[in-house]
């Protein structure tokens, strides 16, 4: 009862409501503008949360995340430009619907399925996070060491395109995370005598540099494209259509939940799996790809079903499952909180206040999403030539605000250049960030295990939990290698040289 009163006291604050609403509005707005991503918006919003209470700060970022997931579908449906990679699947049926004059129906379908999927995902978060955290209370340093090893293997799945490049990016991230003072001996590592580097590389300037600056650089490097205008016309979704799509929505949401809870798999995979399942089971399967309302519903359900579930490994184990949860992990740290099983013991009220806020965000998404459909043209008609200078201003102010030093603006710029080079060479930025976050955790748990075991390596295989993580770590590597060689085989089989031969 005391706990409930404390939870309500933490949650029932006007700041929290404003933070969630503002977050969802920013997310939908940014998500619906092609070229601006939810990741970029979450990174840019992080410095704004410094002076906020932890609950309001996290809810603002979660709101942006959720809004961004839905917002990406708006441009996918109206102008055939997905606002996020996961919305690419919505485009398959959404855009043909818009061309047939049913844009409003497609947008409403996307909204309703997003909200339902988001709600189901939140329920899964509330049920499973606490359960998983309870199990994780039995973990010591060796168990965490193997858990982090397993999480590092997720980098392979985050490496869209080339596994080699993804791993290289991760190694670079780990190497840069080691800059600063060594936590055990206090030795300087790659500080070059610069006191700004003693306390490691600042996370927020790195984040802003890596995810926002390259987009700005590319916009000014690319040939200017004509600005596309869009209009949401037609009638909305009927109750009969919603009932018809319900099975696909619930199935897609569950697929999203399962995929979201596995670190590194991501919303794009969930959207496509949900879509193909819906297509396989639908009586209207021949309509898929030509403007089928169930196709839009399935894709969006899969896409948004991931949102709440990705927070399960973050809150219960302290392991980020994707880039946005990695940024949210950073926000927890800024506020002196460390997600993981201990947080469930020490800050339970805060976690339940967060859960309440996350549930509320689904309702707010419904209201804001409806308004976005109506006033979308106003949002999307802001040309990028006006938008990007403003984004740059936020980048600089945000980077400077961390330590009040110009050095952080330099760091942001340096990582902006790194991000731009990554884009031009096809090296993915997500594994770099995951490596940067997991590198120090890996080293800390390795050293703590060695200290506990007095240098005896058998501590790493001390019990069933470590055995379990060893098996899934090597299983994950084996699966990735199998997929890699399989795709190589397929590519070689379909290459023009082979065909001509």
């Amino acid at each position, binding site marked *: 009862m005391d706990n409930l009163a404390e939870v309500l006291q933490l949650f029932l604050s006007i700041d929290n409501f404003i933070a969630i609403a503002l977050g969802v509005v920013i997310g939908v707005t940014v998500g619906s503008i092609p070229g601006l991503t939810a990741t970029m918006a979450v990174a840019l919003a992080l*410095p*704004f949360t*410094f*002076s906020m209470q932890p609950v309001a700060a996290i809810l603002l970022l979660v709101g942006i995340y959720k809004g961004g997931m839905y917002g990406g579908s708006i441009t996918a449906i109206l102008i055939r430009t997905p606002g996020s990679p996961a919305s690419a699947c919505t485009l398959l049926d959404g855009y043909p619907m818009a061309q047939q004059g049913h844009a409003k129906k497609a947008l409403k379908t996307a909204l309703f399925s997003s909200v339902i999927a988001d709600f189901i995902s939140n329920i899964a978060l509330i049920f499973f996070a606490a359960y998983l955290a309870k199990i994780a209370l039995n973990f010591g340093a060796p168990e965490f060491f193997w858990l982090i090893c397993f999480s590092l293997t997720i980098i392979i799945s985050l490496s869209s395109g*080339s596994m*080699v*490049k993804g*791993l*290289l990016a991760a*190694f*670079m991230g*780990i*190497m840069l995370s*080691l800059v600063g003072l*060594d936590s*055990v*001996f206090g*030795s*300087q*590592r*790659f*500080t*070059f005598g610069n006191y700004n580097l003693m306390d490691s590389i600042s996370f927020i300037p790195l984040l802003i540099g890596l995810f926002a*600056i390259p987009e*700005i*650089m590319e916009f*000014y*490097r*690319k*040939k*200017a494209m004509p600005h596309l205008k869009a209009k949401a016309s037609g009638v909305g979704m009927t109750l009969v259509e919603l009932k018809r799509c319900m099975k696909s929505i619930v199935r897609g949401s569950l697929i999203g939940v399962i995929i979201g809870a596995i670190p590194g798999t991501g919303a794009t995979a969930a959207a496509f799996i949900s879509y193909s399942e819906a297509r396989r089971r639908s009586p209207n399967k021949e309509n898929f790809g030509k403007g089928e309302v169930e196709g839009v519903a399935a894709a969006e359900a899969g896409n948004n079903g991931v949102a709440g579930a990705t927070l399960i490994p973050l809150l219960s184990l302290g392991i980020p499952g994707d880039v946005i949860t990695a940024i949210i992990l950073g926000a927890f740290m800024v506020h002196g909180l460390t997600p993981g099983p201990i947080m469930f013991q020490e800050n339970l009220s805060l976690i339940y206040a967060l859960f309440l806020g996350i549930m509320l965000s689904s309702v707010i998404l419904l209201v804001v999403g409806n308004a976005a459909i109506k006033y979308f043209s106003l949002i999307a008609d802001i*040309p990028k*030539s*006006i938008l*990007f*200078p*403003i984004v*740059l*201003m*936020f980048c*600089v*102010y945000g980077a*400077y*605000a961390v330590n009040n030093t*110009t050095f952080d*603006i330099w760091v942001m*710029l340096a990582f902006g250049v790194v991000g731009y080079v990554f*884009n*031009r*060479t*096809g090296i993915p930025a997500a594994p770099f960030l995951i490596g940067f976050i997991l590198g120090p955790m*890996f*080293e800390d748990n*390795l*050293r703590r295990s*060695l200290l506990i075991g*007095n*240098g005896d390596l058998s501590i790493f295989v001390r019990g069933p939990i470590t055995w379990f993580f060893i098996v899934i770590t090597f299983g994950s590597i084996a699966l990735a290698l199998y997929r890699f060689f399989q795709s190589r085989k397929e*590519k070689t089989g379909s*290459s023009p040289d082979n065909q001509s031969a």
Partner: protein
Amino acid sequence: MSLSRSSAANSAKDTIDIVTGLVLLVLSLVLAFYLIPNYIGEPPILQNPMMSPRWLPNIVSWLMLAFALLLVAQGVLTKTAKEGDERKLVKGPVRRFLVMIAGILVYVFFFEMLGAILSGVLATVLLFLAHPVRTWWAYGFAIALPVGVTLLFVNVMNVPLPLMPF
């Protein structure tokens, strides 16, 4: 002549991967043989070599070296489809890019000297000119937004920024 050119093109199928791999190869060698031994201090007595502050950086640098070699091999052996290659950009005029860089450098060099508002105005105007933005009233935003956002940071969010040069 044409034969040798086509065989050269066939032997190097993805130049970007080869160059990236070579750059990373050099970087990992510099890390392994110069930066780690010279810029990471090691305590005189160690209970276990795995406790050394150099242990993880060493492992990572050698892994980087191995994967950089793999990337070079990938570039030599694998042909990348030109269509849908996200690495390729349809480039615009260089002037646009350079003016944008000048805008960023205004922030880097003058942020503390001129303050957030003046450097914000200057950089935003430069970026508007880089595109270029042709609607004159939009330039009003270049003044109003830096003022508004700076005051938002300082007064609402309690984030201290240098306001003015004086």
